[in-house]
């Protein structure tokens, strides 16, 4: 018998584990209006960024689909979009696409409102009404098959691949194989050295070739800088934790994906498909950017499997942080949701570690706040491809 959870039903047939009202900026010049409105209106999440204007098309599409991903995320009740003037990432179009999913979507424009202070009032008024409507919605029982599991590393060290990534992989595959859910991991440059074995897990030759091509493309992008990538990958804190090369980091990082079949590799910020299985999103290894991408793809929650401990988190998609490094669990208890170090240096095994994590997941999807949610910690960073113009 499948386990159930308590979630929020949406008109587009998705089920949320949270009921957020988001206030989204389409350009840097609307960011302050968004932040000020979110300070005033309780239970709103501001989404701001430095993009949305003077970008080339590949970045415009990426920025737009990432913002739309958050506005129409399963955990999102509705969104107020704030634009500055006429941007290539169009606020009115975004609000219309939001309403097409059955969610409330309002569009505010600073120029049309005759200035930022008027726009602030309009944004507050729209958000105030939206959060009161959202607060009436009740959680209802829902099947676990509705859920999508995000996976990311954070400040990996040599314990990551030996311990916490195993529990993370086991929990992800429990959701997929026992409950019919989905999983998504990312960070393509962190496949370096393990891409051969990873690509052999693809469900068909097209997906296999696509994985190899995208890994090669990242290596070419990094080589084109003219420098050794060491220092950026692995990072100084990775190296402090004992990781020597990007290959060693990658081989450990891939442990968190388990060894089951890979359904597809998808573009940054694009929607994770509905069919049950494990997916890859093509993102950099930069955690804030990869987590932002997976959140835009619609993962309900994310496991942040960390070595040295990390603040990495997301406001819309709750992040559960797990570590198997006993020193990290002791050093940053406020950033450790699940400590499984007893399975690395104590008498417990990885089945115990998996059960510890699964139990936390069951609580969080029905409403238990994560460590980062409880203190309002989050980051938002859309990966950019090309230059500003």
């Amino acid at each position, binding site marked *: 018998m499948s386990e159930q959870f308590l979630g929020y039903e949406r008109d587009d047939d998705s089920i949320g584990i949270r009921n957020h009202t988001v206030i989204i900026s389409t350009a840097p010049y609307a960011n302050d209006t968004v932040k000020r409105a979110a300070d005033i209106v309780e239970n709103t999440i501001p989404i701001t960024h430095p993009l949305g204007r003077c970008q080339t098309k590949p970045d415009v599409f990426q920025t737009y689909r990432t913002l739309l991903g958050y506005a129409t995320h399963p955990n999102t009740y509705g969104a107020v979009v704030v634009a500055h003037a006429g941007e290539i990432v169009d606020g009115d179009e975004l609000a219309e696409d939001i309403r097409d999913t059955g969610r409330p979507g309002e569009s505010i424009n600073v120029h049309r409102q005759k200035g930022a202070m008027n726009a602030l009032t309009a944004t507050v008024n729209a958000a105030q009404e939206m959060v009161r409507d959202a607060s009436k919605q009740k959680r209802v029982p829902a099947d676990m098959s509705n859920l999508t599991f995000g996976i990311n590393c954070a400040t990996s060290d040599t314990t990551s691949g*030996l311990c916490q990534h195993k529990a993370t992989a086991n929990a992800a595959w429990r959701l997929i194989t026992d409950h019919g859910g989905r999983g998504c991991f990312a960070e393509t440059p962190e496949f370096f050295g393990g891409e051969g074995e990873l690509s052999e897990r693809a469900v068909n030759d097209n997906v296999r070739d696509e994985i190899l091509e995208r890994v090669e493309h990242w290596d070419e992008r990094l080589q*084109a800088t003219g*420098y*050794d*990538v060491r220092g950026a990958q692995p990072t100084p804190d990775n190296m402090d934790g004992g990781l*020597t*090369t990007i*290959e060693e980091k990658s081989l450990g990082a891939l442990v968190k994906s388990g060894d089951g079949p890979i359904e597809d590799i998808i573009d940054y910020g694009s929607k994770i498909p509905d069919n049950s299985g494990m997916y890859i999103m093509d993102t950099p290894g930069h955690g804030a950017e990869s987590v932002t991408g997976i959140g835009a793809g619609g993962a309900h929650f994310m496991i942040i499997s960390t070595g040295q401990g990390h603040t990495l988190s997301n406001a819309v998609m709750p992040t559960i942080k797990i570590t198997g490094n006993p020193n990290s669990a002791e050093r940053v208890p406020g950033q450790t949701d699940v400590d499984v170090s007893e399975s690395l240096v104590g008498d417990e095994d990885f089945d115990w570690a998996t059960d510890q994590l699964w139990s936390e997941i069951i609580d969080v999807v029905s409403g238990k706040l994560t460590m980062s949610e409880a203190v309002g910690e989050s980051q938002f960073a859309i990966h950019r491809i090309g230059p500003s113009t």
Partner: protein
Amino acid sequence: MAEKYVAIVESNDNVATALRDIEGRESIELVVNDQTMNIDITEDIGFGHKFAIQPIDNGETVRKYGKSIGNATEDIDPGDRIHVHNVESNYGRGDLADDNQVQAVSE
């Protein structure tokens, strides 16, 4: 008695990971492929850091998870610490790219 706080992932790895702080001059007993071996540690190895369990020649592949994690940049003896000072990566090496047309920005 075999050391509990050392991890060797695959039997053909030539490095091991310390899961406690190990002091230089300790002798560590390890079991690989049912063979017991004693490694004399030559320098302090911090928690999570690695040491060689076989001789590794300059330029030879350093293996963990049964796969390459890079190449040795000097001759390494069993018990020596393994890290960025004696292993280099084979990926993201813009500094070695033959057809590098990029004008490197100043540091």
